[in-house]
Each structure stands twice: as C-alpha cells, then as structure tokens.
C-alpha cells in the first residue's frame, strides 16, 4: 500500500520523534509513505487569523501538490495540520467557484480528490495487522489523550466520536494495553499558549497529567505534536503548578504501537523525550476463567 504523507513543520523539528516513529511503524506495516513534493506550511496557528484567503491558499496548495503527485489520500500525523487541510478540503468541496478561485490563486489545478487522514484513521485500518504482529504486548494502563483537533469539529474531521473518541483506545487494546476511563480525553492542553502563556498551559495540561496519574496510568498516549510538547516539554511548569513531581511519560501512539511490535526504541525516537520514558514492568496477563455456576 502507498499513501501520501504530509509531515508539516513540527515533524521535521520539535517532534522529530513523531516522524521517526510514524515512518518506523508504517514500514513495519508495509505502508509506503510518499511525501508530498514541495509541500509548504499549513498556515499553523497564525495564517487564518491574518487572512482567510492566505490560509485557504496555503492549505489547498498542499492538497493540489498531492493531487499532482497522483495521490488519493494523505496521512497527516500532526493534528493541527490535519485539521487545517481537512477544513480546506471541506470548504471547497461544495463550492466549485471558490475552488477555481483558489486554484487560480495558487497557480495549480485542484479538484478536491485527495482525502486527508489523521494517524489514528490510518492505523485503525491496520488494527488487525498490528494485533497480529505484536511481539511485546504493551500491558500498561494508558491514558488515551486525543486533544481537540483530532476529533473536532466533527463535520470537518468526519472521524470517531467528538465527545468520547474510541479509536486510540481500540488500537492500544489491540496491543494489550488497558486504556483507562478518565475525564480528560478531549480536554484542552493549552495549545499554542505554550509559548506566550506557559502558566495557562501549566494549569490546563496540569489537570490532564494529574487525572492520568490519579487513575494509575503508566503513560499518556497522544497523536498530536502540540499536545505532546505541552505535556512533555512543559512538565517542569506543570509539576510546579501541581506542587508534585509527576514522571509519567507522554508517548506518541506510533511509539507505543512500535514498542509493542518490537521496534527498537532508538528508531522510535524515545530518547528525544524530555520526560524520560521509563516504563515499569508490564502488568501480568490476566486470564479470566469461565466459572460454571450450578447450585442446584
């Protein structure tokens, strides 16, 4: 199988380990990633506040480039990039006039053919294959943290349930993990306040870390570079806010699955995390016996 791939800036910089683990996992699943030629910024958190046309142009240009490369689907691991590209696609889907306008603006033909997929949607298709390839069952309690942009707004992402998403839970269950029921699946991590208002991030992300720890999770699993960085990079501020030292690691879903599939931790970029990834001994496998209840 071949699929288009849009890394975006984070995966080439602050979230290198995300790209490394995506590539390693996809290779293990025989999924070939075709990076969109000459891709550009998705507009990030600033373009759309400056100019709607600019934002739409930037987003659409990536999709047009993917079309030109003959791709039908594009995997976009970064949740923000995913949301931006998917939004552009939706905005133009039922509006041929606007589509033409944007195509003229970016100087590339654009038909709207390419579908945009996040990492969970793609991996969900391979759930059976992943389960079959497990070498080291990932027997931990995990807190599946989806954040905001992977599942919302529903009409844009057309994926999973917006309030209580399940796709990551299912994937981790498939490799032996035990996703905990918790309160913060889709709570805000503070997002781009990471730079300007670390106190806000410390407060919001702090609630997430605290709830995960309180419910005995061994790791928080994410699928978004921004979430990861707020929970990982901002851990000192978080711990200061909570007045407690929390060492719970924050893994990308691709890393957690990669570990289960026996991929080398170095290849998955685990060493790049700021909160060291130190997982305890896996929990023992629970065998449930069928008890026969006859009391006649």
């Amino acid at each position, binding site marked *: 199988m071949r699929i288009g791939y849009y890394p975006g800036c984070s995966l080439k910089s602050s979230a290198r380990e995300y790209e490394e683990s995506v590539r390693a996992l996809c290779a293990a699943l025989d999924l070939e990633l075709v990076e969109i030629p000459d891709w550009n910024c998705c507009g990030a958190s600033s373009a759309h506040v400056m100019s709607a046309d600019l934002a739409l142009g930037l987003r659409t240009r990536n999709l047009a480039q993917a079309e030109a490369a003959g791709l039908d689907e594009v995997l976009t691991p970064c949740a923000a990039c995913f949301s931006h590209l998917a939004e552009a696609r939706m905005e133009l889907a039922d509006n041929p006039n606007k589509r033409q306008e944007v195509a003229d603006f970016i100087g590339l033909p654009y038909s709207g053919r390419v579908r945009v997929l996040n990492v969970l949607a793609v991996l969900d298709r391979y759930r059976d294959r992943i389960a079959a390839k497990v070498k080291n069952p990932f027997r931990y309690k995990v807190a599946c943290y989806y954040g905001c942009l992977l599942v919302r707004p*529903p009409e844009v992402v057309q994926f999973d*349930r*917006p*309030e*209580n*998403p*399940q796709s990551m839970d299912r994937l981790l269950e498939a490799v032996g993990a035990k996703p905990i029921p918790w*309160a913060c699946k889709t709570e805000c991590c503070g997002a781009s306040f990471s730079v300007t208002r670390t106190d806000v991030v410390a407060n919001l992300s702090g609630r997430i870390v605290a709830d995960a720890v309180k419910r005995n999770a061994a790791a928080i699993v994410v699928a978004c570079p921004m979430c990861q960085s707020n929970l990982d990079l901002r851990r000192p501020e978080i711990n200061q806010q909570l007045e407690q030292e929390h060492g719970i690691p924050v893994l990308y879903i691709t890393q957690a699955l990669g570990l289960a599939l026996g991929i080398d931790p170095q290849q998955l970029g685990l060493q790049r995390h700021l909160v060291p990834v130190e997982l305890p001994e896996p929990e023992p496998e629970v065998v449930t016996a069928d008890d026969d209840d*006859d009391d*006649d």
Partner: protein
Amino acid sequence: MSRVGVFVCHCGENIGSTVDCPEVAERCKQMPGVVHAEDYKYLCSNPGQNKIKQAIKDHQLEGVVVAACSPRMHEPTFRRAVTDAGMNAYLCEVANLREHCSWVHEEADSTTEKAVDLVRLQLEKVKRNKPLQPIEVPITKTALVIGGGVAGIQAALDIADSGHKVILVERSPALGGHMAQLSETFPTLDCSQCILTPRMVDVSRHPNITLMTYSEVEHLDGFIGNFKATIRKRARKIDEELCTGCGECLQKCPSKDISDGFNEGLTTRRAIYVPFTQAVPNIPVIDVENCRHYQKKKCDRCVKACPTKAISFNQQDELIHVDVGAIVVATGYKVMSTEKFPEYGYGTYPDVITGLQFERYASASGPTQGVIKRPSDGKEPETVVFIACSGSRDAAKGVKYCSKICCMYTAKHAMLLKHKNHNSKAYVFYMDIRAAGKNYDEFVRRAIEEDGVKYIRGRVSRVYEEDGKLVVKGADTLLGGRPVEIKADLVVLATASLPNDGQSELARKLHVGCDEYGFLAEAHPKLKPVETNTAGIYLAGACQSPRDIPETVAQASAAAAKVAALLSRSHLTREPIVAEVNRRPAPLHSDCTGCFLCESACPYRAIGQEEILDRDGIVIKTIAKINPGLCQGCGTCVATCRTKAIDLHGFSNEQIFAEIMSL
C-alpha cells in the same frame, strides 16, 4: 361507441376568458363519434347538469365528455349526473380545461387549440370505455388491536363499547405497556397504575373483547373489511384454564437472577414469573431461555408447587387464524439505552440511568417501594442531575426529532425527587423547555419556582467518575456559556423515544409504511392522522411518533371511531378500477402464459393463481388471477405483462392507445 356528447364549461370567466369555448364545442361537432356538443356557463350547476341529462335522453348518448375543471374536482359530480340519466357512471370522462389549460396559459389560439386537443383525448378514450360496476365488499365485523398499552386498551374498549368484537393482541405476558411502569403522571401527579389498572380489568371482562397476551401477529393477508390475520400465541407453558393465579409456583423457582424487564433491569425475577403484581391476566409465564427444566432438563419444582396442575411443559406455540375487518396498530415505543452515549460513559456507570428506570424507583410498586435510590450501592442520592434531550434533537449522536414527552417527565422526576427527599438537589440540563399542553407550562413553573429545581440551559459535554461521584460537565448558556461542573450521585438521562423493537417487521407484515425513523406513517399528517396508506389499518399512540398519555388516548379513541364507523356498515363499495387477466377461447384460454413475473411487481400481493381445468378436472393451464378485492388499480402489472394479458379497467390499453393516437 359512436354517440358521444361533449359539454364545454366556461366556468364563468375561469375557462371562458382564455379559451374560446363556443369554438371548442363547434370543433368537437366535427369530430367522428360526436353527436352532440354544446357549451354552457356553469356545467356543475344544477341547470348545467340538467343540460347533460337532457342531452343524454335527447340524443341517446352512449358516452359523455365534460370539458371543465380538473376531474379531481368534479368528476364524481358529473358521473353522478349521467347516472341520473340512466348512463353508467364510467362512460363519462372529464377533460381538464381549467387547471391544465385556461388557468396556466394566456388567451391565444394555441390555448383554444390545446383545449380542443384535451377534449379529443378524452373523446377517444370515452369511445372505448366500458360500463363498470362498483365493487361491493362485505365487512367482517371484528377489529384487531395490536398492542396492549394504554393506546391499545383505549381503542379496544371504545370499539367494544360501540358493539363490535375486538381481538386485542399483546406481545408481552400482560397488558399495560409502558404506562404500567410509570409512577405518577404529569401534570396532575395522579398515580399511573391507579388510573390504568381498572381499564385493564375492563378489557379482561368485556364480553366483546378477546384478549390474547404473549401473542404476536405472524402474518396478514386480505384487505379492508376482509383481513385474515395469523396470530402466534406463544406457549406460556401454563394451562390458562387451570391456573388460578395463586402464585405458589413463583416462590419455588430456583432460577433467580434474571434481569427483570418490567423493572427495567433494576431487579431480578425468576424463570416463572408474572411481570407485575397487578398484571392482567394474572397468569405466570415460563421464560424457557432461563428455565432449568428446559436448559438443564432437571427441574420440576413449579410443577410440584402448583395445586391445580396447571404447569404444562409440553405446551407449544399455537397459530390462530382470525378474520377481521379493521386493524388498529398500537405497538408503542422504546427508549434509547444509556449505552448509546459515549460522552456519558457508554452505559458503563451504573448510576447513569434512563428516565424509565427512574420511574421504577419512583413508583410505589417499584423495586424500592417509591424511595429514590441509586443502582450502584442502593443509597439515596443527594444530588441528581437530569439531562434532557439525551439523544433527541441530536442528528450527530441520536435522532433528529424531539421526543416530546421528556421535558414534562423530567420536570415531574425532579419534582418527585424533591417531594420524596426534601434535602436533595435536582438539576436539569435542557435545550428548550417544550411544555405546550393543558396545564403543562404551569407544571414546569411549579417545579422551578415551588420545588426549587435548578434548570440550567445548556448541554452536558461529559459525565465522568471521580472519587465516587459522577462529575457532570456542561455549560450554562444563559450565563454566557460559563462551564458548569456538578458532582452528582445519580444522573438521569431523558433518552430519546424510539420505534419499538420489531416495528419495521410488523409494518412489512401489515403493508403499512414507516417514516425515515421507523415510526409508522400516517396517510396524511393533517387530514388523515390515524389512517395508514393501507385502507382499514389505523394507528394509535407512540408507534406513530413520540407522544404523551393524553394525546395517545385521544388518538386511540379517534382510531376506534374510524373502526366503529367502518364496522357499522354492511359492505364497502370500491371503485372498479382494477386489473384483470383476460380469457380467450381454447386452446389458448388466456393470453397469460403463467410466467408469474407480474406477481412480485404487485404492491398489494393481489396476484394469485387460477387453474384452468378440462372436463375431467385435469389442469390444462395455470394462469394469473387478480383478486379484485386486493387490487387497488395501480396498473404496474399491466405494464409488466409481456403478452398484454392483463388490462386495467378504466385505463385500458385500448383507451390509452387511442388517447395517444389522437394527438
């Protein structure tokens, strides 16, 4: 036929101002077969009709074309007029010069030209019309009511009181439906069972009502006035004649931990059980799935306990065939389960319950004798959050429609909680309060103002567990969308009302339609609200759409009135517009080849078989036969038949062919 009279109506100015009516009449005189043509100001008036009658006599007319308004308007009028003059009604056709011509075109030669063409079409048709006789259908004076909830009970009693026989079929072992489960009813807070139980007893005692519980409609054939229903009377495994309802057996049954459906799973029952204490009939039933006698082949404790030897393990389902003239469908609704709500934990938190479960707690005959408790630990909750519109008005996660009853019962629930436990706190998250109805809004205001129920306008985004409490997270949109978090002991979801289980299968069996949600469809939302598209089948209650008790009862009485009116007639007359398979001299017998490709094309399953026998009774040929009682005259079979062996009276091949050829 070649003695046709044409009558052109001016309809005052309506036709006359754009169509040159005298010219049309003049032109018609030239057409072959026309022996008389005239125009008149108002043909539908008495003098106008008299002109037609007179002309029929004067010119010995054999057919009439009235060129006037739409046949959908006055065809019956003119057909009645020709009948008065001794002509068969179906030898009169109407050309639509008003709605299809004068009103939609400007005054012009081409408009008059079109008018002439329209008359010519009908002229060519009427020349080939054949006299037809209305079909008379006898009526079986018994009604079938499907469903023994309050709708079915009301309909059955009303029909029975009007002097007709009723067969009431209920799927569960006892009458009562959801109403029997309810605690108090809004807006009067009178006890549901207290008002329902006497009606249930009335049903069981009524000389005109045959009650069949634990039974389902298996199959339906026939048509209005003449339905043939097959009812599966499921084996209770109890001899109903012998059982006295003493209840000895109930205590002895060792299979105990079976979820009790009447109590919405809040308690357990045994494998032999009566759904509830006041059940009508008060006869137990054995739940074969859970009975040790059937599952493990080794228990007969109930047999030993029964003083009248009424337990009958070998009892089998019975198929009972009944003839009925009319049917009332009153199959009710069900509520969406809590598992449908991911944001509220997919049904994993035991203390997130449905409104119906709350009813059982609040009911004096419920598992806690009316004390509000919570399922997880049986404690009385201090803080209860009610979430209205759980699944209703929510296209993304539930259903698009409003479930209608929830606003009122949620107010009632909150009120009951406060009445039963004065120290408790009740919160209601709502979208809008829909309390239209007699004394309804006053009731809600009372909950808010007198009983201090806190109403929060906003949606709940999530319910999660923390430190033994359920944290309900929502927003108060009246306070600018401020987030609200309430730590609750019990959360009650006013879950959406859904079409009952098996309703679409039943609809298929009965040949009635469903709407996009699966509720049964009425024939017309305004003018035929209790009729279905299948003549003789009527609707009552929540099987049609969510509705409360007063509305349900009113509709049940309406359906009953329709049925009573139908059954009080001696026979039905139907338009003779039906299809027929032709017959030919031997050796062909019919153009029908007996391929039966038409059979599945008939929407009414009106096509059966007919065997043509020789003198010795040997089958020469099997051909299709159309039951004129079932046929509604759509003509789909006619268009399907390759050999044109089937034709439709009133719209025959010859008639339509002639119409086309006149163009």
